[in-house]
């Protein structure tokens, strides 16, 4: 019997020894996993943005971009996120919407900026979309709903225009699953707290849009596609209450109202 236990132990040790040795190898680099993923993501992101962009009016105003960049830079630098990798686009649209495309393209509609009462609310939405990008939710969602083979065929130009439009619609108009949305919300709260921005304002924004949702919701895409906004507001508040945040303004007093004026 003692012999059996010794042999079982040796077998277990052998398994973990092989695992330990194989763990020393950088397989991702060896199989070029990250390189392949990054290049596919880059091609997809640029392709989707070009197609989406062709049918929309992008805001190129320097003053608008300067103000938006200040907010983005503040959140990125407070959270050690490489700001250069994020491509911010502001699109003129009556739809309250913001979304992330592959390869870190962050698209924010003018109507969404307009519906924010202060910079913290806008930072909350930016933080939420950045969280989707940082957690790789965009590619995960695409692979899950579209399939890797179709995504690769899109990058090689073998997929039809209809299919590509379908994918863009999926990215711009439908939410991630509940678990990923919650993860993005909680991460956004962490980003905001590290950036000394009060996350309660983000919860207020969700609650306010959630109320509008019941009346006229034709243009409230960001809320319509993110279910249970009241519930989200609740758990955001619960999460942020645990940490006391000394909020500090990111922009100068008049900058946010100036941003809204510039977009009108």
């Amino acid at each position, binding site marked *: 019997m003692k012999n*059996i236990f010794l042999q079982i132990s040796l077998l277990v040790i052998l398994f973990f020894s092989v*695992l330990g040795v*194989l763990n020393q190898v950088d397989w991702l680099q060896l199989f070029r996993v990250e390189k392949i993923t990054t290049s596919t993501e880059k091609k997809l992101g640029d392709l989707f943005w070009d197609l989406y962009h062709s049918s929309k009016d992008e805001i190129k105003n320097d003053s608008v971009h300067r103000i938006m960049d200040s907010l983005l830079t503040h959140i990125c630098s407070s959270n050690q996120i490489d700001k250069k990798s994020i491509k911010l686009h502001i699109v003129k649209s009556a739809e309250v919407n913001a979304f992330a495309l592959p390869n870190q393209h962050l698209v924010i509609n003018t109507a969404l900026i307009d519906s924010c009462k202060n910079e913290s609310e806008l930072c909350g939405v930016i933080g939420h979309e950045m969280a989707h990008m940082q957690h790789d939710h965009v590619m995960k969602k695409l692979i899950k709903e579209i399939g890797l083979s179709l995504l690769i065929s899109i990058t090689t130009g073998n997929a039809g225009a209809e299919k590509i439009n379908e994918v863009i619609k999926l990215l711009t108009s439908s939410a991630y699953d509940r*678990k990923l949305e919650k993860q993005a919300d909680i991460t956004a709260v962490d980003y905001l707290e590290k950036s000394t921005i009060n996350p309660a304002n983000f919860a207020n924004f969700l609650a306010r849009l959630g109320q509008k949702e019941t009346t006229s919701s034709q243009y409230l895409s960001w809320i319509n596609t993110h279910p249970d906004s009241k519930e989200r507001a609740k758990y955001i508040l619960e999460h942020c209450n645990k940490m006391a945040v000394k909020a500090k303004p990111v922009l100068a007093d008049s900058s946010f109202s100036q941003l809204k004026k510039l977009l009108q």
Partner: protein
Amino acid sequence: MIALNKFFVEPTEHEIEKASNSYLMSLIALMAGLPFPIINLLATLIFYLGNRKGTYFVRWHCTQALLSQLSLLFVNSYGFWWTISIIFTTEKISNHYIAYMLTAFVFNVFEMIATIYTAIHTRKGKHIEWWCYGNITNAICKP
């Protein structure tokens, strides 16, 4: 790792065939159910249950085949659910994942080679005892 021992009774042709089939059963199931680790175990378990009242030689080999599948079940199940979590959740492919899957693959290949070798030799009437598994089988399978 694999020892060729003399069995204390000379098995009949019918016993040899059944004992050899217990290994083949796990191989066929391995081909059919490669992504689903439970299938291999179920196949050998069903074969074992069907022969638990068989002769000692048949029972002994069914038990050894079952034990080999049982240990791989844990290894393969962990790998299977890890893969599922990569496909359906936020879990990403990592160096640890690839290392684990390669380790599981190496152990599966060794098990498969040992199974094929044992199935062939058992069919010839030889009694093959695996290192570790043979001793466990001797401990739990009595004449």
